[in-house]
């Protein structure tokens, strides 16, 4: 019996049943492709976020050492001036050294005494000087104070430097390990939340470096970006979508706006460098200029999102308003714009989130400088969160690895909050008609 005669003998319904099997198999296959694509994406996301969190989590904690500090009047204010300016100039490092020597009285060899200094952060002196600034009554007293350890001790405690390494391969020598174990045994060593990370600007000392400067810089920059790009973008979109006649010119503008959205961000940085800095002579490294550059970059995103949400407002609403005698501007402002607002806000927030995560254009206008002070105004030198990540990733100290990851966690947290806001707004104000 040949194939053809066999198929002839098959009934109509049998043939459909046979093809059904094939179709179901295809469907299952397709479903599997989809599921595996999503699974792969999720796995990579988990690996990425997981590695950032594992590395960065330690960045939020620090090791502190308790020392008995003698705020000796001889060192702080030997002439008895009671002048805060004199206090500020005092040699607090010496006080720290004295406290360490008092903690380990057995250490007498000159070399060992020098090694002792490596236990405590170089920034500990500032901590003490701030204590005196806030409370001069401490002068002449002796206090038990928790001081930040050096980054080497911190790394050692967190296990990022293994104890099994040969002594020559680590910066913490065996003698330090002995002291650390002694401190640990006496309960004079603890791990606590690193508040300095959230309140300080950048620093060359990893244990003293914080992201507050970058957060303020990013906030100032994004503020400029928002007040420039939101009104400009929305007005441009309203004009193009609702008011302008459709001519070759508006087509041309539309194509170019779409192209602008695809221009690499560093090009905007070059533009800012050429126009804002070299031609207009605006201050370098300033949030003002950074905000302007990012506004240029965000504009097309906002225009496109706004036009899309204006388009999504049903024409029947426009007709209803026009039929009542509303002028074109009234139609837009009273009816179309309020209905399009959730979409516009969502688009704006997503554009802003992109601007927050952008570092390339900021590099070009000098927001990549090492800046210790917290910026106070739009023209102060500042840096931004992603640039801070970039700067720390480039630093040689071992301890900056976890700082980099910790700053990334903060950046990701901001992005997640912004995107969640966008989702919330969309859900909250979504209307049906």
């Amino acid at each position, binding site marked *: 019996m040949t194939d053809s005669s066999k198929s002839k003998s098959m009934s109509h319904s049998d043939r459909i049943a046979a093809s059904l099997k094939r179709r179901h198999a295809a469907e299952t296959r397709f479903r599997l492709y989809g599921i595996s694509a999503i699974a792969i994406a999720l796995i990579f996301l988990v690996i990425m976020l997981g590695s950032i969190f594992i590395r960065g989590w330690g960045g939020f904690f620090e090791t502190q050492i308790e020392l008995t500090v003698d705020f000796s009047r001889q060192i702080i204010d030997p002439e008895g001036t009671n002048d805060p300016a004199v206090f500020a100039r005092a040699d607090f490092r010496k006080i720290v050294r004295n406290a360490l020597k008092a903690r380990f009285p057995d250490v007498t060899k000159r070399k060992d005494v020098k090694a002792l200094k490596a236990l405590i952060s170089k920034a500990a002196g500032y901590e003490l000087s701030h204590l005196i600034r806030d409370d001069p009554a401490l002068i002449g007293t002796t206090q038990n104070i928790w001081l930040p350890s050096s980054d080497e001790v911190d790394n050692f405690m967190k296990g990022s430097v293994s104890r099994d390494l040969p002594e020559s391969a680590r910066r913490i020598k065996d003698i330090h390990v002995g002291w650390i174990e002694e401190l640990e045994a006496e309960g004079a060593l603890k791990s606590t939340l690193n508040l300095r990370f959230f309140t300080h600007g950048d620093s060359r000392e990893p244990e003293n470096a914080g992201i507050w400067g970058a957060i303020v810089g990013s906030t100032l920059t994004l503020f400029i970006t928002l007040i420039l790009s939101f009104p400009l973008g929305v007005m441009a979109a309203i004009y193009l979508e609702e008011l302008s006649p459709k*001519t070759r010119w508006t087509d041309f503008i539309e194509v170019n706006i779409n192209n602008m959205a695809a221009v690499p961000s560093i090009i905007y940085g070059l533009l800012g460098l050429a126009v804002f800095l070299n031609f207009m002579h605006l201050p370098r490294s300033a949030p003002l200029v950074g905000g302007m550059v990012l506004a240029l970059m965000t504009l097309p995103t906002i225009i496109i999102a706004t036009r899309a949400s204006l388009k999504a407002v*049903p024409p*029947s609403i426009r*007709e*209803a308003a026009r*039929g*009542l*005698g509303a002028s074109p501007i009234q139609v837009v402002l*009273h009816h179309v714009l309020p209905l399009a607002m959730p979409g516009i806000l969502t688009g704006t927030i997503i554009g802003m989130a992109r601007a927050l995560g952008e570092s390339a254009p900021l590099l070009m206008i000098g927001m990549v400088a090492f800046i210790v002070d917290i910026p106070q105004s739009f023209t102060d030198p500042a840096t931004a969160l992603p640039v801070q990540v970039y700067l720390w990733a480039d630093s040689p100290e071992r301890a900056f690895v976890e700082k980099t990851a910790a700053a990334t966690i903060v950046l990701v947290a901001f992005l997640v909050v912004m995107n969640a806001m966008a989702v919330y707004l969309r859900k909250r104000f979504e209307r*049906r008609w």
Partner: protein
Amino acid sequence: MKTALKPKPIRVTVRNTQSSSSVQAMKPAADKNAPAPTLEGAKMNIEKVNVFYGDNQALTDIDLQIRVNEVTALIGPSGCGKSTFLRCLNRMNDTIEECRVSGLVMLDDMDVYGPDVDVVHLRARIGMVFQKPNPFPKSIYENVAYGPRIHGLVSSRADLDDIVMTSLTKAGLIKEVRDRLHESGTSLSGGQQQRLCIARAIAVNPEVILMDEPCSALDPIATARIEELIDELSQNFTIVIVTHSMQQAARVSQRTAFFHLGELVEFGDTEQVFTSPRDERTQGYITGRFG
């Protein structure tokens, strides 16, 4: 065709060449198809109206008189141009780039397409109700109050309340919405929404109300209510209604115009058009032979 970008000059020139001479010249021609309507009783007078979408002619030489406080029904098969014609009367076609209108449309003694006519003012005089109920996604109160508010018709909140209540009463909706004036207009049923749209249109107190198939999205009971309402409204307003349903035209209108392929085939008293149509195309359409 980029000349469509400057439609107004075209309209003006066409109007200027025709208006003065054609009023006399065309009247006998109009009378041939539609006897009786004299200019005295006419609220709107349409002469030699041609409408083009790009290169396509949608309407050809339409002459029509719409009489005051009457319901004029426009019927015809799909695509015959009746909606296009309706939208010419309050210049709703203005925003369609490709659309050009020539000829004369008069509202009383105002040339609707005249160079000094403000469409905002025109649409306050000629209201419109659309095919699909389209209340604003605002409260019922705000829906009705919007027109009077933008036209500055009221000076106090009490006046506005008054207009809103009167309009809702006239639209026969007040009983259903008295206690929920501040709920969204879109929460109403389809028929209620359409009556809300009618209330919104009459709140501005227009002289003419245009209705573009106002019942096509409604069930028979809601339709019956709207038809009743149209009947009541015709006491005070001049109404032009486009409808797909010949029964509806027969029920609500005093005069009927039959459009076919962009031409006005027949225009006359509703009874005459439905009982003894003069044109065989009308005959064919109302007896269901096509359309």
